[in-house]
Structures are given as C-alpha cells and as structure tokens.
C-alpha cells in the first residue's frame, strides 16, 4: 500500500518495507493491457526469501548478495565504511572526476519539486513518494551535511530531518539507488541545473568503490568479466569469432547474399565495436552491419582482443574506475590495430561512456576519433553506394530514443532522416527526441534480473514507455498489422523484449522490436527476401 513518506522514514522500521508495489495502484495502461487481473501477477518474495535476503524497501530485491550484518559490530563497520565513502566522494583526490558537478547538485537544490513530474518511474508508480527523484537526493544531501560537513550534527537538528545512519538507512539507500534509470529527464527539467541522476550514480559509486557492493550483472559478471574474458556475455574471443562465423554462413544461406565478417584487420579505416549481447540475442544486428559495410565497400574490422568485440561499458552505471578501465581497453585495442576511427555499435551507453564521459580519460595517442553509429549509418544510407526500395519497409514503425544517444549526447536527427526515407509508415512517439521516456532498462536495469527485479522493471520502470508504444500504434491495435519498434540500442532492445514478453504484446498487438541497421538492410534492393523475420523475435 502506498503511503506518504517522510525523509526520516528511511532510517526507521528496521526490516519492515517502506512501500509495496501493487499493479492496480500503478497508472493504468491502454487496452488491451488495462485489465490487471489478465496479466501475470507481480512476483512476490517468499517467506524464505524474506528471511534470507535484505528486503526492507519495496518488496523487490535487485541484489541477492547484499550482506546482512550479523551483529552490532558489523553494522558499525558498514556505517563507518559508508561515512568514509561519503568523505571520499567529496575529496579531490578520490573523486575529481565528478566533484564539481556533485557539489553543485548537493548545495544548490531549491527543493521546488519541479523535477518529479519528469520522472517516468515516479509517474508510472502513480506518484509513490519513494520513487521521487528528490527523495533519495535529499536524503543523500542530508547525510553529507550531517556526517561530512563541519557542525553537521547541529545542522541536522536544525534541518528538521535528522536522519540516523544505521544499517536500515544504508541497505535501503543501496536498493533505492537501483530504482532510477539514470535517464536524466529530471535533470533536464531542473531550472537550477541540479542533477538527481548524478547524485544517484554517485551513491552507487560509493557503494561500489568503497563497500564493494554492486549488482552482480554489472560488476562481477559485467565489467570484471569483460576485462578478464572479453565480454559480460562470457564469450571468449574464439567463441565470438566462431559464433559470428556460424552466423555469417547461416545468413549467407538464408539471404542469398555473401555475408562475411572481417576480424583484426590492421590499418582498417574503421574499428566497429558491437555489443556482444547482440551476437547472442539479436544476431540480425551485427549481420546487418557486415552486409552494409561490405555492400558500401568500407574498409572495416572487428577486434578479437579481450574486450575488443564488446562495446558495453557498465562502469557508466556504477563505478568510475571500471568505466575508465573498459574505455582505456577499447582505445588501446584501436591504437594497436592502427584504425582511423572507432564506430560505436547500436548501444546507447557505449556511446555516452566512450564518446564523452571517458573523453577526458583518453589522452595522448589513446584519443582516437570516435563516431556514432547514427552518423555512420546516415552517411552510408545517403552515400548512393547502396540502392534502397522503401516500399519493402511499408509497415508501421516507431522510434525509441535511447537516453544515452539522444538526451545525453544530442544525436537526434540522423536516425530520423534514415527512417523518414526508408520507412513510409514511420511515426513518432509522444514525447520523443531529447524529451523521450527511458525504456525502463536504463542505468543497467536491462541486464539486471536478480530475484524479482524483472517484475519491477516491466511493471514500473518500463511502464511509461510501454504505454507510449501502444499509443504510437493507436488505430492499428490488432496483431494482424505487424509493427516495429526501432530501438538502436542493445540494452533498450533487451528491455523491450522483456516488456513485449511480459505483456504478450507480440501476440496481442503484433509488435516486435529490433535495431536500425536491420531496417536499412530490409530495404536494400539486393535483398531478395525480407530480412526482418517477424516470427522468430
């Protein structure tokens, strides 16, 4: 049941939940998805899970391995570690990377609550206090003022919200830092320039860099795996080569076009770095690039170095050190190959992490030009080197804007120029462009699925987006008309896959989701059979 929350509630009530998610209390979805009783229910925690796991926030657990203190000493240790992390976040040596943005966001919020109305999670929850962008930020602010700044204890008393730092506060804050997509829609709407998403990320950083707590999908099976074996998918270099080789053969057979992937070509013009997850989950995507690059006569290559065939950088979501390690690895690989530029795959956070956030970490000869896949594809489509027949794409298409490519990087129009040219039934969602709603998979969520987190993702985080999608295809609701969500980002596609599966939207509305390159290949005159397979997705 939803209830009004005070800031101080975060520290109270020990193991009791602060709120509970009830699907019938969320904003309603358009028909045929408006009948809550006809949808699969929300996966509740069992008694055994409640006993074993830390579940004192909203009945959802995103990280089963969050340790529980066994006694008072252990609790004290966590509190001390948290305070030490807060201090490091505010120090030049440990956090020069984001010190200025963080302090400006901590110190100059006017507490006007304007940003809340921009948050898709808060809106989807029908204004649940816990999910306000300002709720976690204000708590963080109060803790910084109390525990790091001079006269903090007195300030806390005068603030009217004296929050005690105990195990309950810390564990709830950890979970709460993973109830935000880092989409920065709230930041965009703040008249003061305050960034609640940045505060959330700093909180995640504190947990990761000081206490060693981070979702296993992002850290242990994410960046750590990527740096050790090559990819968070677990694919080692030889497996990646084998998989793509197999796909090349398979697609050569099914399309009738010779498909081949170039590996480790020194001196190539372009090093293309896909998300390796595409090879497994959306193989049409990397194959499309191979077809397009070969058809346009581009000198290109993939890399089989450890980490070089997977462009994802989960460090962007939780840890500066891991972010830097992955970005530097990518740049070192490109330097070794001697390519003229690196082209990002269809991956939003890869774009943001590598093109701008890590830009100031890539100095000297690691500063290799980096191109977005959007401008790369636009240049290719309008180069005249490939012939297209847009009537092949004569089905309803809508475009999802990945936050990290659009709001966070300002690449808005190239993808639209392609779709306007190649897709006669292209229509926008409302709102779109830099005002878009996150798919709900942002901030690392699309790969996170511990305990019952997927249920929260599809019910709450992705709700506004799912609503938008259904509304974009208004007028053609039935499954007889096949519809395509173009989501040029692996993480977004994975989130859409979860949403479409959960709501049965493929069967009920005929909606599938794929990337941009597939639509381009589908419209090629040389492509004798439809490239987009509506059935398999």
């Amino acid at each position, binding site marked *: 049941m939803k209830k009004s929350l005070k800031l101080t509630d975060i520290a109270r009530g020990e193991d009791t939940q602060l709120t509970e998610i009830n699907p019938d209390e969320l904003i309603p979805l358009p028909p045929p998805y408006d009948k809550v009783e006809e949808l699969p229910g929300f996966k509740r925690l069992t008694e055994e899970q409640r006993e074993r796991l830390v579940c004192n926030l909203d009945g959802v657990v995103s990280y089963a391995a969050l340790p529980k203190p066994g006694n008072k000493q252990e609790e004290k240790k966590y509190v001390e570690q948290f305070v030490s992390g807060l201090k490091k976040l505010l120090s030049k040596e440990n956090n*020069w990377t984001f010190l200025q943005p963080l302090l400006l966001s901590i*110190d100059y*919020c006017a507490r006007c609550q304007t940003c809340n109305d921009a948050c898709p999670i808060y809106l989807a929850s029908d204004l649940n206090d816990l999910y306000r962008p300002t709720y976690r930020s204000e708590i963080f602010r109060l803790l910084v003022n109390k525990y790091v700044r001079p006269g903090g204890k007195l300030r806390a008393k005068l603030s009217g919200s004296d929050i005690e730092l105990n195990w309950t506060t810390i564990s709830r804050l950890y979970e709460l830092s993973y109830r935000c997509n880092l989409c920065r829609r709230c930041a965009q709407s703040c008249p003061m320039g305050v960034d609640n998403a940045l505060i959330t990320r700093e909180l995640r950083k504190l947990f990761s860099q000081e206490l060693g707590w981070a979702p296993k999908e992002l850290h242990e099976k994410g960046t750590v795996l990527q740096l050790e074996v090559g990819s968070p998918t677990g694919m080692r270099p030889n497996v990646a080569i084998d998989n793509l080789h197999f796909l090349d053969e398979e697609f050569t057979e099914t399309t009738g076009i010779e498909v081949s992937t170039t590996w480790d070509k020194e001196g190539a013009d372009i090093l293309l770095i896909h998300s390796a997850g595409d090879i497994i989950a959306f193989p049409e995507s990397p194959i499309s690039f191979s077809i397009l690059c070969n058809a346009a006569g581009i000198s290109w290559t993939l890399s089989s170095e450890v980490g070089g065939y997977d462009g994802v950088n989960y460090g962007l979501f939780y840890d*500066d050190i891991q972010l830097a390690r992955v970005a530097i690895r990518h740049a070192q690989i490109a330097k070794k190959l001697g390519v003229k530029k690196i082209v990002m795959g269809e991956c939003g956070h890869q774009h943001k992490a590598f093109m701008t956030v890590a830009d100031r970490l890539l100095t000297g000869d690691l500063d290799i030009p980096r191109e977005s896949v959007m401008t790369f594809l636009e240049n290719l489509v309008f180069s005249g080197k490939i012939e297209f027949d847009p009537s092949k794409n004569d089905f309803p298409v809508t475009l999802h804007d990945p936050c990290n490519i659009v709001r966070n*990087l*300002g690449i808005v129009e190239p993808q639209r120029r392609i779709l306007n040219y190649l897709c006669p039934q292209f229509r926008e969602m409302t709102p779109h462009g830099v005002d878009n709603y996150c798919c709900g998979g942002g901030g690392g969520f699309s790969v996170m699925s511990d305990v019952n987190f997927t249920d929260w993702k599809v019910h709450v985080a992705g709700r506004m987006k799912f609503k938008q999608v259904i509304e974009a295809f208004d007028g053609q609701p039935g499954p007889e008309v096949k519809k395509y969500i173009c989501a040029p980002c692996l993480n977004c596609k994975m989130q859409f896959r979860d949403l479409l599966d959960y709501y049965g939207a493929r069967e009920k509305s005929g909606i599938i989701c794929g990337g941009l390159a597939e639509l381009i290949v589908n419209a090629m005159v040389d492509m004798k059979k439809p490239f987009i397979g509506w059935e398999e997705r």
Partner: protein
Amino acid sequence: MSFFLIALTYFAYVFIVVMYAVKVVKIVRMPVHLRWELYPVIHEPKSDYGSSYYEDFEQWKKNRRKTLRKGIFFLLRENFCFSEYFKRNRGYWLVLFPWHIGFILIVIFHIVCFFGALVMVAGVSVSAESTFILGRTFYYLILLTGVISFVTGSIGSIGLLIKRLSDKDLRAFTTPQNYFNYLFTLVIFLSGLYAWYFVDPTFSEYRGFWKGLITLSPVPVDYAAAAHIILFALFLIYLPFTRSLHYITKFFAYLWIRWNDAPKDKKMVEELNGLLDQPVSWSAPHIPSGRTWAEIASEKTSDEEKP
C-alpha cells in the same frame, strides 16, 4: 545611531562580497571533471531540437560553431523571468517570480541609490522638481524600484509561505530555515513598505542616508527607515549562509556541466595528467589502494607508462 547605520551597512556589503567571493573561488578552483553534458545544449546551432555537433559525420574534422552568447542570454532571461519555472511549474512560478522580482529590484534600488548619491555629491539635486533631467530620472528610478520591490517581495514571501505550507509535497521538503527565510524577507519588504508609506514617501531620508554613506558624514534618519536599513544589512550578512548563491552557481551548473561539451585542449590535458597521477584510496577489493588513478585505470604497475 547614524554612525552605527553607516558602519553596519559597510560591514554588510564587505561581508557578503567576501563570503560570496570565497564560495565562488572554491567552486572555480575545483578540478576539471569528466564530461556530463545534457541536451539541449543551448549554444549549439540546432539546439531547438536538442542536437549536438555529434550529428555531423566525422565531426572532429569540422569547425565547431559554438555561440556562448546564446547561453548567456538564456541564463539571464532565466534569472529575470524564470521561464523554466513558468513552463514546468506554473503554480510555483506564481509565487517564486514576485519573490525574486522583489530581490532583483531591491538590489537595483540600492544600486540606483548609490549612483543617485554620487550624483547628489556632484551637486545635482535628486527630486521630482529637480531642474536636471538626471536628477528627476534618479528620483523616479529610486521611487519605482523601491516601491515595486517592497510590494512584489511581500506578495512573494507570503505566497511562498502559503504555497509551501499548503502543498503536501512541498511541505515534506521544506526546512525550518526555509520558513525562517520567507518570514525574514517578509519583514524586510514590509518594513520598507511601511517606511515609504508612513514616513518617507519620496525616499528623501534614504537618499540622504546614502549620500552620508558615501561622504562618510552620517545624517539622522527616521526610526522606520533606520529599521529597514538595519534589517536589510542583517539580511546581507545572513545571505551567504543560505542557498542564495544559486543565482550565480546556476551559471556554473549550466555553462560548466550541463552545456560543457568542450573537447580537450592542451591546458586541460596538463591538468588531467596531474589528476591522473594522484593516488586513489577507495577501499573496495577491485581498487588496489595507494596506486595512482592512471595506474589503476590502465591496469599497469607503477614502473610502466601511464595512459
């Protein structure tokens, strides 16, 4: 009393300038940070729909068409009209706008008083009947800015109090200091209004005080005007202990973070190299403590080269 008013006013102005300067210098001297821009970036030529220079194929080969002027105009407009609030939170704007207009005009009122006093020292009489156009201009400017400031400021202070108390969401995030601020500003604006209406309808006392301030020859002022002068001086001393600097820090937040899309230059690279050479002391197991940022990020031992 007259001397006390002059001393207090001087102290208040010096205090606020020094305190603000210290705070601003602290922010300015913070190290360069990683890029974290957010679109629309207003100085971009195609900012209407949020586009950046990354929309240009091989953008690094092209000249950037950045126009700082557009950003500054946007921020100034924002600081005077609060258009973002008007667009996104109209109910709040209705009370916030008069409150801030009260501040802006009270500052202008004091600036005009200062220059008006200079003009008076130069021998120009400042009054409605002055034979000099300059004298009449200053007279009406002081009158208008003063009165409008006191009225709008009072409306805004009361409005914000009511808004924050009556709106459940705002109430949950309002601190006792916020309420104190609204009450304090209300008292200041009302004291000015009272002094003008009942004691000094042409602000002649106030003009005289400012002339005395500049020539260091205190003149006696009426108790109501004196009360307003004292309250305003105390307010100036109090301001650095509030979040009032957001009027200035907003420029930093926009220009240096939200719109900071600057690629590296030589000076920045030098600074970055220095920062990358600093040792890191985070405690998580994946961060070997004591080694430098560069060593940790490039996974090299200290005797190898940094990135």
